[in-house]
């Protein structure tokens, strides 16, 4: 088990590698293989390091929340092999993140009063995200209740140094809401729903990232 100083060093390596990877993609410089490999190495280390714990440092949680969504979006800015390479890397990183967050039951967190409402609202009426995935559209009313609950949680956890794994999984779902925009435009051909999803994503984005 690594000590705190060692962990902080590894977190700094993950942060820098993530930034190098994303900045290169945004500026059109392409996929930075070296930075990607470093990200994978760090996530693999953290998966082993935090297997038995229920919460992980916020800096790492932030990266976990945004990384797949950012990479997926950037893959759309490239074409051919480069785009496929980015998408493949994004999927691999998503798998690693899911492994890092495994092991702690959502039910455990639901018992925590702070999170009870949020989980209840998400699970209502056939689960908010499941409905989005299956093309049943965007439920405005349900979203408003979820947003309100999320807002009060974000105020509370702002001062926390670590975040519960099950909550990070929920935040990932919110952050990746904008990816449904493509699905609703291209697959379900529901432009209006896509529009509503994007607006909702922007509100949540400002809450959890911006």
């Amino acid at each position: 088990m690594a000590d705190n100083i060692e962990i902080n060093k590894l977190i700094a390596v993950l942060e820098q590698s993530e930034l190098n990877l994303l900045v290169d993609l945004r500026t059109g410089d392409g996929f930075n293989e070296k930075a990607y490999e470093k990200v994978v190495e760090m996530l693999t280390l953290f998966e082993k390091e935090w297997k038995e714990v229920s919460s992980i440092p916020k800096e790492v949680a932030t990266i976990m929340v945004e990384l797949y969504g950012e990479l997926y979006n950037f893959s759309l800015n490239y074409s051919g092999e480069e785009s496929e390479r980015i998408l493949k890397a994004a999927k691999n990183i998503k798998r690693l993140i899911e492994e890092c967050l495994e092991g702690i039951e959502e039910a455990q967190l639901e018992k925590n009063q702070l999170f009870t409402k949020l989980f209840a609202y998400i699970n209502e009426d056939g689960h908010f995200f499941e409905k989005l995935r299956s093309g049943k559209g965007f439920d405005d009313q349900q979203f408003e209740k979820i947003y309100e609950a999320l807002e009060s949680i974000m105020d509370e956890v702002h001062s926390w140094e670590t975040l519960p794994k099950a909550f990070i999984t929920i935040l990932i779902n919110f952050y990746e809401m904008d990816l449904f925009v493509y699905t609703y435009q291209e697959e379900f051909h529901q432009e209006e729903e896509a529009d509503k999803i994007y607006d909702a994503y922007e509100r949540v984005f400002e809450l959890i990232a911006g």
Partner: protein
Amino acid sequence: MKKYHLSGIIALLMFISICFFPFFQPTSIKAGELSFPIYSGENVETTYIASTVTTTGTDIEETFWDSVTEWFDDVGENIDTALESIKEVFGAIVSYISELITTVDNAIGLFTGNDDSTDEIDDVNDTLDQAKDTIDEIDISEDTTGNSVYRVLREDEDPTKGIFAKAPEREHITIAGHVNNGGKKNFKGSKYISTTKSLEVALKNATSNIMDKGSTHDLRIVKIDLSKVTNTYYDLTNPKIQEKYLVNSKGEPWEKVRRYANASRELLVEYEIPAAAIKLLGRPSELQE
């Protein structure tokens, strides 16, 4: 009677001796005025560690020599203390240099993941050299007066009519939000117009469309005179602007968007850029000619 006079004379002489004794002592013994120079940057500072001795009077009593001996002991102690301090300072400097070297080594190891690999260190050095070259290139291509920026135009934009924000009604989009999401295909726009301070960046964006799978194209580049821009603009490479606007919703520094803004040398203009401020430079193919 004689006996009486003699004892009186002796008593008088003793009285006179006692009265005049202080005047035979040295007039000044100043500690703290012997100096040696210490170099501090370009200035030479003088530090006092002991003093010179001035004696007057012709009769030097044993007590005076005691004082002098004590003083020399003090001087010796002062010199010893000073030398000890100098030794300590040099020790600290040597230790600092060692720490610095270790820190640099660790930093290289940290960022490369390999503490001992000279290849990795060489790689980092190469990257730093490349970064320096890039910075030099950017500096060359930037307007030295800082009064002009560049923008790549979409084909549907007409510079003779001005340049307009994609979604001026979307007031809620923050500057940081614009920078973070501006590069995404599904971004719905904001009240901000992106420009760059670097012609290099503009040329790159004009030839390779990042928003269309990196497809090759040959878009027009315009130069914008900021002195003729009437709306508010934000130089996102300015650390003070970054401190104020490139933060998350909790007001904490947002490193990712700062890196995005720096890499693109980004400057945002609110709502519109008047035609009078715009000068058409042309397409990259025309500029090469």
